[in-house]
Every structure is written in C-alpha cells, then in structure tokens.
C-alpha cells in the first residue's frame, strides 16, 4: 500500500486524522446570555440588537451547509450531536479544531465587541470543549481592538482546549501593521496558533479595488486577501519580533502560494533595503511559519497539475486536512484529495502536520 499511486492516501498510515476547520455556530444571541454580563443581556432584550452576524455565507448557497447539517433548533454547525454524527464518528477524527466565525469584528461598539467575544469563548468552553474531548477551539477576539484582543487571549489562552486565535482574513488594517503587535505578542505569550480564516467584516471592501457585486466574486477572489496578509506579516517583521509565531491559513486555498513566493522572493532581492529586518527570502519565512488547510481545494484541471503545485510549495509540511464542516466541498472529504497523493505526503496532511502545528500529543 505504501507509495502506491492511487487509493493509498485516504487511509495511509496509522496516524490519526486531524480536521483543522470545523465550524461551531452560535445558534442565536440568547445562547450567549449565560455568558454575558447582565447589562448586555438587558440591552439585547430591550433593543433590536441581536449580536454579531454569525456567517459569511449565504444560508442556502450549496457550499454553505451540507445536507443534514441543519438541526431543527438552529443554523448549520450549531449542533454538537450532528458534528459527532456527520464528522467526528464517520471519519474517525482524532482531533477537530473548531473555528467559530462569530463576527466580533463587525461590532463597532468596543465594549460590546469585548463582551461578546468573552461570551462566545466561555460558550465554546462550556458547550463544546467540556463536552467533547476530541475538540479543540479557536479564541474569538475583537481583532479591531488589538489591546482588548490581547486581554481576551490572556484571559482564556491557557485553557487547554484553546489552541488558536481566530483572525478574519479581511481586516481593517493588514495584520503585519504595528497596530497589531500587541495581538501578536499575546498570541506568542500563550503559545497559540494564529488562524487566519476566510472572510471578515471589517467595514472595508474585500477587494482593494472596491466592493464586488456578487458573493461569487468575493468567494473566488479571497486568495488576494490572504496574500496581502502574508506580505504584510513578513514585511512588517512580525515573524522577526515574535519568532515562535505559527500561522494557519484556513479556507484560503493554497495553489496561489508558489507563484506568490516566487514574486515575493524576487522583489525581496531588489527591495530588501526597505525592510532590512527581513533577513531571509520571504519564502523561507513562509515555509517555516505558515500552514494551509486544503479545503476548499482550488481544483486544478488534472491531478498532475495538483501534484505539480504541491511540489512547487517546496515542502511537504505545509498542508492541513480540513472538512470545513458544515460547508460542503466534497461528498466524501477523505476521498476528494488524499487518494491522489503519495502515501507519505497524505499521512502528513491527514494529521502529522497539524499535530506539529498545534502541538497535539501523539496518539497512545
């Protein structure tokens, strides 16, 4: 089975399967009441404010929710029982990393942003982490307020269930900006991964060229946002100031990365005098510090193209298995991608790369 070209990758090796992108959705604002200060509960009861939006995806778009993932009493992704039934049990997931997309970044009231972020994190501890040992979670933060975000990271960052801080890919300022250094310092202090995830609601357009008209454009064009974040993080020296930083790019695709690294390296040779703290070729920083989830896959036309692109990444340690539940990218996530890969690479993507990234223990 080892090394055979077809059919080997899906179940290669004994290493456990680690799903690096599973969404847990706050079903409705009332679910946060037990975790909110009383005056915010009162505020929600007496106003039309219903908390932040919970999803970047049109509810009925085919990718938004796989069949059967919508429980009777809430939106897709709000049921732990369904998550067990549809992902954890049938795929044999050893660990799944929760990525809660509660849009704290859309809240312009700073006290509300901080209070709702704390409530969502306490809700994650009580209703997900405490109930299911296979889960780890991402800290939701008011990223638009880096000092408050750092405070929230310090508040819950030592909980063993939290392995990551979720940063929406779209931000008010690029994440390398010095405005965000307190946030990076807190992430490094608590030994967490910075998980940069598709989407975001910062108030400015998803494209630097302006507002797109259709969800289609935004969804297909998000790679440029991820690229700009990487350009910023490397160029503004985040990885030099905080050398233990680990970054996961989630739901951003990865086939754009080789071309981006070529260009990034090329311009560094010309222009590195402008950023003398960037001491190595940018691609060397990226291969050391950045990992990427595989779903949604960019779907190169042929398997050969896919394998060429993976080879161009220049490392077999960059890719992370993910289902992106409850979003649907493949009828069977294990068969969509891994069987096309050499067994050793598939084994790394299934779990070894994520185990190293998130510091997860080896299975007994």
């Amino acid at each position: 089975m080892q090394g055979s070209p077809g059919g080997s990758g899906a179940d290669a090796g004994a290493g456990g399967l680690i799903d690096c992108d599973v969404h847990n959705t706050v079903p409705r604002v009332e679910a946060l009441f037990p975790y909110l200060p009383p005056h915010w509960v009162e505020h929600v009861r007496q106003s039309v404010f219903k908390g932040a939006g919970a999803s970047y995806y049109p509810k009925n778009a085919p990718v938004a929710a796989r069949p059967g993932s919508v429980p009777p009493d809430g939106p897709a992704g709000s049921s732990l029982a369904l998550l067990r039934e549809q992902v954890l049990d049938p795929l044999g997931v050893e660990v799944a990393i929760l990525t809660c997309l509660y849009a704290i970044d859309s809240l312009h009231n700073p006290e509300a942003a901080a209070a709702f972020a704390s409530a969502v994190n306490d809700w994650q501890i009580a209703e997900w982490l405490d109930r299911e040992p296979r889960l780890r979670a991402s800290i939701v933060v008011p990223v638009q307020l880096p000092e408050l975000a750092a405070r929230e990271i310090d508040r819950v960052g030592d909980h063993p269930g939290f392995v990551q801080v979720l940063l929406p890919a779209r931000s008010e300022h690029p994440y390398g900006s010095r405005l965000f250094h307190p946030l990076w310092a807190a992430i490094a202090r608590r030994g967490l991964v910075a998980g940069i995830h598709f989407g975001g609601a910062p108030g400015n357009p998803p494209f630097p060229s302006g507002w797109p008209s259709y969800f289609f454009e935004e969804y297909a064009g998000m790679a440029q946002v991820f690229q700009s974040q990487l350009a910023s993080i490397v160029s503004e020296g985040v990885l030099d100031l905080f050398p233990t930083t680990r970054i996961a790019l989630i739901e951003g695709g990865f086939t754009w990365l080789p071309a981006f690294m070529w260009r990034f390296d090329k311009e560094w040779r010309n222009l590195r005098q402008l950023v003398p703290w960037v001491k190595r070729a940018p691609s060397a920083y990226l291969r050391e510090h950045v990992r990427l989830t595989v779903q949604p896959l960019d779907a190169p036309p042929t398997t050969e193209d896919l394998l060429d692109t993976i080879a161009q990444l220049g490392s077999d340690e960059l890719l992370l298995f993910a289902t992106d539940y409850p979003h649907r990218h493949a009828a069977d996530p294990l068969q969509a991608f891994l069987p096309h890969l050499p067994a050793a690479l598939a084994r790394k993507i299934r779990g070894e790369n994520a185990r190293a990234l998130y510091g997860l223990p080896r299975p007994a």
Partner: protein
Amino acid sequence: MARYIVATADEIPPGGRKIVEVAGRSIGVFNLGGEFFALRNRCPHQGGPLCEGKTFGLLQARVPGAIEYSRPGEILTCAWHGWEFDIRTGRSWCAPERLRVRRYEVSVEPGDALAAAADAPAPGLVRGPYQAEPRYLVVEIAPERGSNRAASGATSGHGRGGGRRGAFRRRGWSAAPTRPRPTRWRRRAYSSSRSSYGPPR
C-alpha cells in the same frame, strides 16, 4: 595569471570607481577608503552592468525599526535590478554562499618596480613609461575555468546585449548557445520533481 595595469591610484579617489576593459572583460575598480577592489562588471543574476550601479551602505535590522547602518559606500546595487553585492567580497546579500560576482586582486605598485619586475604586467590601459609616482593599480586575472577567453581579448557581458544569462537561459528562454560556466543562481531551486517532497535544500 595575467596582470594588467588599469589605472593610476590617484585616478580613483575614495568612494570613486573606474570601469575598465581588460582581457576581454569589463571590470569595475573601486576605492573604499584607500583600499582598492575589483569586480567583474556583470551581474550574476542576468548579466546586467553591475558596476554601474549605485553604492550604498549595509542596512541591517534585528527587528522592525531597529535599523543599523554601517559601511557606507561598500555595498554595490546592480544597475538593472538592484541586487546588493559586497564590494569587498563580491558576495550577494540575498544568497551570499551561492551568488557572487567574480572579484580580482588589485595591488598598488610603484611604476619603477613594475617596469623592473621579471613578471612585468601587461600594459593594460595605462601606457608607460612608468615612474615611481603616481602609483599604479594592477589587476590580476586568472583564466576562466573551461575557457580560453582570457587570451581572446573579446569583450562581452556588458550592456543590454548581455542580458538573459544564467538561470533563464539554461531553461530555454533564449536560443543562444549555453555558456561554459553557468551562473550559480537557482541551481538549487526547489525541485519540480513530483517524487521529491522534501524541504527546500
């Protein structure tokens, strides 16, 4: 090893340079605070006229904003793409072990000694009679590996016609015949071989 007299020492003041053609090569001779250095005037990146580029100091920083500026005037940036080279060593900043420009030994010698020496240098660009003062700059040029171009006197590698050398050319971007000494750059670029998934070498 051939030696060529390329200038009088007072022709090139500190911070100055002179680009000379000797033995079929274009060579830049630089004066850094009274010490002389000579580099091939052809960037190992794409063959650009490296020695025509601007000089700058060495910019370093441990972390953002903590800029340390040293060795003003000792870093040469290629006129075409701005890649940086250390005039003292010929090494590039971006890949110092792999990407260097050829450098030549320069000595400063009195003219009367030159004229009397058994291995008297070829006249190069400066004609005799040589006197004790001013002193003369003598560049030593070894024959290139796998090539007898040193004897041919041909001039190349200078100006726009010399572009697209090295890595791109070897990959078939140009129909011109392959040079005997391929550039060092990109030899160890990561493999496109499908069976090799190792980390970058």
